């Protein structure tokens, strides 16, 4: 086997260790995860998985592994796994199901979907997903194979990475990630790589959240190598405690913080004049806009002292290279695009673009249509493309990822406007209890549908409340697949037989897609599909597996100086001007403000002072915990033991003020509803802010409505509206107002005891 890159090793993909067989693989959902660490799956003589270890030969994770993969056997063999297709036999919500064959399940899907297509057009079937990662391409393939332009998620403003991706694509024509040597198989030993002088952790806790192909502990690796840290977070995370500067920001004011940094950097001329001159568009216009957001004013808005903001901006701008690892908090503000745009301006005007240890532009490895790509969208008819939901209201959706706008999908489901939606394909999404805003509205919308297919590992509140057909999918050791991220591609190798009759997401997409549209989905098996998308590697799926490989593409810095960013070979960036557009012509053409701005959260101490009197606490949410991936893993005993209850973190002063104490169950209430949480006292928060867990339900409680696994008492989404930003991207999931008070004795939501 010859690899292009001499640093890549040929490794066995399966071998024997005593009585155990070891299979090398990559962990890509399910269960959900955004990483895809290299793993070694150990199976016994009976073919049963006994344990999962981290793969020390995989440069991505270098043997390390988190508790969720270490607990994988309990997930795969859990007695509650969905094991075969089931159709609903009672009313929705009654939790009455009957086992059916795959043949019957496929017949039902094909008959119904085709009937809706014939009467209402293919756009009447919407293909939505959660945040599983071996799901996205499959969902796209199936959606476009069927002929519908409507593929998205049930999350207001699609407020998870998609706003940042759209912002990046619109203003830079590419995507950029913090460079922690992840493009190189020899990692930190790679001579062309330099460690960042300074890393900014902005609105995330990467050591736990591990967003999209970025292993958070690479930050720790860089700290050991001497990188300085700036952390922007309302909570004192472990990283914040170790940081050179921690900015305890008020939730929802990230754009104000970024504009304040720009103000300092521009006023003090700390930017890279050459880079600005050569490679950016609209610096003067940006500077003019930034002048409207002086640091002293932004200090009041963000609740961070001016001198700290200035110190952070100076440290960032005078460190080179510097990287920014940004997170979900950027997306989960309503005006998220200008927030992302302002942060992009920071690394652009400081010349930290595509340099070692800075922010590097990335592409699909070997052009494989897995991590991103076309997924068949370009083959849709112009008529089908034109009716994508949200396109008329949000013209920015024309550029970048061809998503349907989630809030508009929900409206269309409720009103038949602009056209009727009849069926939902919902894969790996417990939207009612996890990513969706206002769950009552979403449930009403779903229950207006004639046919809802839900595909998951476990039955969820969403499945019980709304699904007509449940299809079981596989955990990663049960399937063949591909795992790709910006830098490399590798095999997911099947190590055990499926526990039940489940199919992989890839199988569902290819098999059903082939029935719906054999011209667009010509492959009959997933392996044929994998061979086709791996064309650029000059290997088949089996050859890549036999090489035990994680394939790295060649990586070069400063691609914009070499003509590698644009399809036409010209120098510069893949934007209309060929420059990074600090003044965005794409935004302008979409009727949006071409320059970054800050807008207060819709409900906040400043935007709604009267509401703040009644609801005098700022409420944030969504911080991740080691034990779960969003609403997943709640039934996994050893993980649940780490986090048995839905928690709210409260400063002791605040708790005393409202008469609540450690371990008390409280109601968190706003004008939309109330939700229970158990109090954990902590000084990691500003006393004016509390932080509540998200994604809670109780797999051990009654599934049937009205209980829906005890979801209603603990469903944080009851406090969140469907209310996206002007671009159609972003929503205020993390910045709300609330009041708190004790739950009456006997009415507490708690049920699980270790």
């Amino acid at each position: 086997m010859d690899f292009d890159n001499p640093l890549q090793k040929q490794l066995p993909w399966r071998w024997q260790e005593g009585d155990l067989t070891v299979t090398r693989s990559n962990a890509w959902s399910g269960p959900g995860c955004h990483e895809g660490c290299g793993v070694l799956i150990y199976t016994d003589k009976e073919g049963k998985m006994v344990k999962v270890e981290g793969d020390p030969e995989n440069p991505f994770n270098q043997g390390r592994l988190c508790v969720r993969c270490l607990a994988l056997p309990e997930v795969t063999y859990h007695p509650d796994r969905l094991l075969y297709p089931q159709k609903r036999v009672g009313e929705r919500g009654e939790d009455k199901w009957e086992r059916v064959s795959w043949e019957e399940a496929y017949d039902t899907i094909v008959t119904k979907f085709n009937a809706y297509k014939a009467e209402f057009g293919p756009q009447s079937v919407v293909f939505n997903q959660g945040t599983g990662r071996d799901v996205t391409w499959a969902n796209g393939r199936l959606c476009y194979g069927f002929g519908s332009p409507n593929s998205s998620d049930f999350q207001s403003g699609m407020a998870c990475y998609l706003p940042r991706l759209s912002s990046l694509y619109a203003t830079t024509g590419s995507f950029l990630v913090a460079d922690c040597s992840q493009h190189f198989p020899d990692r930190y030993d790679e001579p062309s790589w330099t460690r960042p002088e300074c890393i900014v952790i902005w609105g995330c806790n990467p050591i736990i959240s591990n967003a999209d192909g970025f292993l958070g502990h690479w930050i720790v690796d860089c700290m050991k190598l001497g990188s300085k840290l700036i952390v922007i977070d309302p909570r004192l995370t472990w990283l914040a405690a170790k940081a050179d500067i921690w900015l305890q920001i008020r939730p929802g004011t990230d754009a104000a913080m970024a504009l304040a940094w720009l103000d300092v950097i521009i006023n003090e001329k700390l930017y890279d004049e050459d880079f600005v001159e050569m490679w950016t568009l609209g610096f003067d216009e940006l500077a003019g806009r930034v002048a409207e957001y002086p640091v002293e004013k932004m200090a009041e808005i963000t609740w961070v002292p001016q001198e700290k903001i200035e110190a952070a901006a100076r440290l960032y701008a005078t460190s080179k290279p510097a990287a920014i690892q940004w997170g979900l908090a950027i997306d989960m503000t309503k005006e998220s695009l200008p927030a992302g745009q302002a942060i992009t301006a920071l690394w652009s005007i400081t010349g930290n673009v595509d340099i070692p240890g800075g922010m590097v532009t990335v592409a699909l490895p070997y052009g494989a249509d897995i991590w991103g790509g076309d997924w068949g969208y370009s083959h849709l008819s112009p008529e089908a493309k034109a009716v994508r939901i949200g396109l008329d209201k949000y013209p920015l959706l024309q550029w970048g990822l061809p998503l349907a706008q989630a809030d508009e999908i929900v409206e269309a489901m409720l009103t038949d406007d602009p056209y009727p939606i009849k069926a939902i394909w919902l894969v790996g999404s417990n939207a009612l209890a996890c990513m969706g805003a206002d769950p009552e509205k979403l449930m009403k919308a779903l229950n207006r549908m004639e046919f809802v297919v839900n595909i998951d590992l476990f039955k969820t509140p969403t499945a019980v409340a709304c699904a007509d057909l449940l299809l079981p999918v596989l955990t990663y050791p049960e399937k063949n697949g591909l795992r790709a991220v910006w830098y490399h591609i590798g095999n997911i190798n099947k190590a055990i037989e499926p526990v039940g009759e489940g199919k992989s997401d890839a199988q569902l997409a290819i098999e059903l897609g082939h029935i719906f549209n054999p011209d667009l989905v010509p492959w009959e098996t997933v392996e044929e599909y994998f061979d086709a998308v791996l064309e650029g590697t000059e290997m088949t799926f089996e050859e890549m597996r036999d090489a035990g490989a994680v394939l790295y593409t060649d990586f070069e810095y400063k691609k914009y100086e070499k003509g590698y960013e644009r399809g036409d070979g010209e120098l510069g960036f893949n934007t209309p001007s060929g420059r990074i557009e600090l003044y965005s012509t794409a935004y302008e053409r979409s009727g949006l403000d071409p320059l970054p701005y800050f807008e207060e959260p819709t409900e906040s101490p400043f935007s709604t002072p009267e509401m703040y009197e009644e609801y005098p606490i700022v409420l944030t949410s969504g911080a991740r915990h080691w034990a779960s991936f969003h609403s997943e893993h709640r039934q996994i005993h050893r993980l649940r033991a780490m986090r048995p209850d839905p928690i709210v973190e409260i400063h002791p002063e605040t708790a005393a003020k409202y008469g609540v104490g450690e371990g008390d169950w409280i109601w968190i209430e706003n004008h939309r509803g109330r939700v229970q949480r158990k109090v954990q006292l902590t000084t990691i928060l500003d006393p004016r802010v509390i932080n509540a867990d998200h994604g809670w339900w109780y797999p051990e409680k009654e599934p049937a409505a009205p209980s829906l696994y005890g979801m209603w008492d603990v469903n944080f989404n009851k406090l969140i509206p469907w209310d996206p930003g002007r671009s159609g991207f972003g929503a205020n999931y993390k910045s709300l107002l609330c009041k708190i008070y004790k739950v009456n004795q006997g009415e507490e939501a708690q049920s699980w005891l270790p």
Partner: protein
Amino acid sequence: MSEYGLLIDYKYCTGCLSCDFACNQEHGFPLGQSGIKVAQFGPWEIDTDKYEYLFVPALTELCTLCSQRVEKGKQPACVQHCQSLVMTYGRIEDLAKQMVGKPKHVLYSR
């Protein structure tokens, strides 16, 4: 007493509990038991803008230093899976030398 031990750079332990879980899995201990457990100290403010937020792993009576893994040329389960890569297995004598001049390290013997 084994002449081998574990050197841990606890400055960078993030409290992810992968060591605890990996040990529990490797040896099939009952839920909650492990050869290595992680203690948490803080977070609290030491001084203006300075914080104590420490995780320190400690070996329990159950720790065998993964002799069976080590015989096969592997790292102990906790060492391999540590997400911060802060654990080193080796001869105590060598580890003690490595420790000299390094802050916030702890050396465990069994």
